[in-house]
């Protein structure tokens, strides 16, 4: 798994993924995404950040909105011989994060940018402590289990 603790998606899913691994008898290893510097690169490399795991991240970039992103968490599932099976990225399909968080963080009528930032931070923190984060964490587990079952039954999507 690739993770950073500043990521709300990692805070939500990493404990669940650890529990899933423990329950399923999987050997879990977690890798930091970044080194000392935060990376906003769309094409991360070890040349840019030798103290990071950019080379692993580069294998699992998230393509959306015409760009590639270093979205985390990335939970990669391998066989005992490290043959790739499936990977999960960032958040489950039912969590329309860009839409939901975009609305929370949008500047509202009469708000300054600073006011909107402060309110957005507060409301996003409240969202993270709401039951919906449990719903989305459970959806993450459901997606993974369904995908691994599908992989076992009909093979990889490629």
């Amino acid at each position: 798994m690739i993770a950073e603790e500043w990521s709300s998606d990692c805070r939500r899913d990493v404990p669940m993924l650890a529990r899933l691994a423990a329950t399923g008898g999987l050997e879990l290893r977690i890798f930091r995404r970044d080194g000392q510097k935060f990376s906003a690169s769309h094409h991360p490399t070890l040349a840019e950040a030798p103290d990071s795991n950019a080379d692993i991240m580069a294998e699992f970039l998230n393509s959306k909105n015409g760009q590639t992103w270093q979205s985390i968490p990335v939970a990669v599932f391998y066989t005992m011989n490290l043959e790739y099976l499936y990977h999960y990225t960032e958040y489950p399909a039912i969590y329309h994060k860009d839409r939901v968080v975009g609305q929370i963080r949008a500047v509202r009528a009469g708000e300054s940018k600073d006011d909107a930032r402060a309110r957005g931070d507060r409301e996003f923190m409240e969202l993270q402590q709401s039951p919906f984060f449990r719903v989305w964490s459970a959806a993450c587990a459901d997606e993974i289990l369904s995908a691994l079952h599908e992989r076992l039954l009909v093979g990889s999507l490629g």
Partner: protein
Amino acid sequence: MDRTKSVVTPQRFATGMTFDQYVAYVATPENFKREGSAPATRRCGSTTRRRRRSSGWPAAPTVPPKCW
């Protein structure tokens, strides 16, 4: 992407952290010195992470935001 070729070899895999090592690491001064996604975004969270893994999600927030 050719998934048969990867930098994740058995030797590299072994360098990753277990969950307990990760939880311990994120609370270290070494980690807090690293840049986050925004200023002051690195926070403790070890207690909550361990609880969420071991007993599921708390029904209501039981820890202050600074140490979620």
